[in-house]
């Protein structure tokens, strides 16, 4: 009842009130642009600044707009940009940011060369959403939090939080930074596979390593300026590498990860690990590389004990907060076992 009354008050203050207004979550009004080239898109964004947002698949952006986390006056639609829709397997893989997740998941070459990426893409939300949601969108996914991903009336009733409209973090009231969680499935894999992102901005294009693209701050979670557009992702060749991506969530579909682990391992002929990368997802505001755990594996034959030690070291890195589905203690407790499973899955 309280919910409906809040909704009612909210609409009363905005526009004229009709029954359909209070029975639906609607997008706030905006102007829509469909640029036909990347320079045109970037120029529009530079012109409108923070009043404009890029919209690729829109599967993360539109729900956030409906809940008034974002109220851009201008949307710059990217679906006309052919440059974002190419996949090239020359010396590794260069994939356009506009490729839908289902295409990434079902592409035979990606399944063969980068099975962890195909698996991660196949685990994002549900089939309908993956037909529209893009790899670039998932890599730039907004950070998530129990106190943030709520409707406007819900957030208003509690008091707005640090990430949007307020000045307090409801997860940890003394926290000076936002603790919203990096919930992308593809980002940990991109970091584990040493991906490089090509960004186009008003000052031309630049390349940034995936590892440096994510920042551990729930609000400023991407290391890019507002006008920069993720154009393509380059993943170096990983021939002979073993890799995996494991995701924990309540249901086997739809849900975001509450813990995920991406691994990439290189073994020599004798079975000695020459290089290892382990990345934890959904335990901080950015994917977390477990460097210490990687060191334990490197130069060793991967026995059960070594894997166990490495997994326990990686688990120390995870400091989940009480702001996603499932309890804090459970999520913390699951990390070492999950890392162990991920390493073993890669070795299989």
């Amino acid at each position, binding site marked *: 009842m309280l919910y409906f009354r809040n909704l009612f008050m909210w609409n009363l203050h905005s526009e004229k009130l009709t029954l359909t207004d209070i029975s639906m979550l609607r997008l706030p009004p905006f102007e829509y642009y469909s640029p036909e080239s990347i320079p045109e898109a970037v120029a529009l964004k530079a012109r409108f600044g923070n009043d404009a947002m890029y919209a690729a698949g829109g599967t993360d952006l*539109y729900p956030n707009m409906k809940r008034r986390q974002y109220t851009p006056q201008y949307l710059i639609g990217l679906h006309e940009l052919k440059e974002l829709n190419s996949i090239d397997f020359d010396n590794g893989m260069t994939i356009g940011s506009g490729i839908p997740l289902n295409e990434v998941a079902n592409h035979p070459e990606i399944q063969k060369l980068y099975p962890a990426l195909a698996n991660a893409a196949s685990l994002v939300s*549900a089939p309908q*959403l993956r037909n*529209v949601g893009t790899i670039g969108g998932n890599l730039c996914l907004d950070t998530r939090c129990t106190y943030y991903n709520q409707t406007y009336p819900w957030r208003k009733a509690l008091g707005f939080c640090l990430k949007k409209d307020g000045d307090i973090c409801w997860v940890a009231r003394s926290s000076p930074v936002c603790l919203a969680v990096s919930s992308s499935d593809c980002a940990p894999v991109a970091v584990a596979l040493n991906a490089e992102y090509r960004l186009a901005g008003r000052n031309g294009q630049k390349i940034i390593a995936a590892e440096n693209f994510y920042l551990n701050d729930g609000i400023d979670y991407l290391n890019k300026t507002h006008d920069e557009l993720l154009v393509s992702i380059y993943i170096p060749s990983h021939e002979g590498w073993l890799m995996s991506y494991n995701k924990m969530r309540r249901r086997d579909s*739809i849900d975001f990860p509450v813990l995920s682990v991406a691994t990439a391992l290189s073994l020599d002929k004798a079975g000695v690990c020459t290089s290892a990368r382990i990345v934890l997802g959904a335990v901080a505001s950015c994917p977390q590389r477990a460097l210490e755990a990687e060191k334990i594996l490197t130069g060793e034959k991967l026995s059960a004990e070594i894997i166990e030690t490495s997994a326990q070291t990686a688990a120390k890195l995870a400091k989940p907060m009480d702001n996603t589905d499932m309890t804090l203690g459970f999520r913390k407790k699951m990390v070492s076992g999950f890392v162990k499973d991920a390493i073993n899955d890669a070795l299989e």
Partner: protein
Amino acid sequence: MKQLLTLQINNETYEFWASIHKTLLEVLREDLRLTGTKHGCELGECGACTVLINGEPILSCLILPVEVQGKEIMTIEGLAQPDKQGSDCKAHPLQTAFAKEGASQCGYCSPGMLMTAKALLDKNSNPDRKEIREALSGNLCRCTGYAKIVEAVEQAAEQVRELTATL
């Protein structure tokens, strides 16, 4: 701001003015009065609003009509096709199977379920149980417990195979 939209829906062309910030779901239900497509969570978490765009299931609550201009849209209203003799519409095998199996209880998820299942059967008329569950994994049903729905899709698949065999 209103914009002139041209949409291909169920083999008909609709040309109309609509607010640019309305989602495909809102336009279908409110501007075109095609209310067979249901609105559920409106945040992409339930699948109730599923329609087919060029044969692929997508969520109409999370797409703008301007993004699907020139593409073939199919809603639940277009699922029953006219038979060869003329004007009478014949229910799709999925619709018959859903009714027969009791795969609808309150019926709110059914349009989304049927459209998603249609996309599956168009691609694969002999899906196993795992494939059906995977295809329908984005559609929530709070009544049936899914067993009847999966059985209905299996039954419809059989019928589709028989129909294509007799052609």
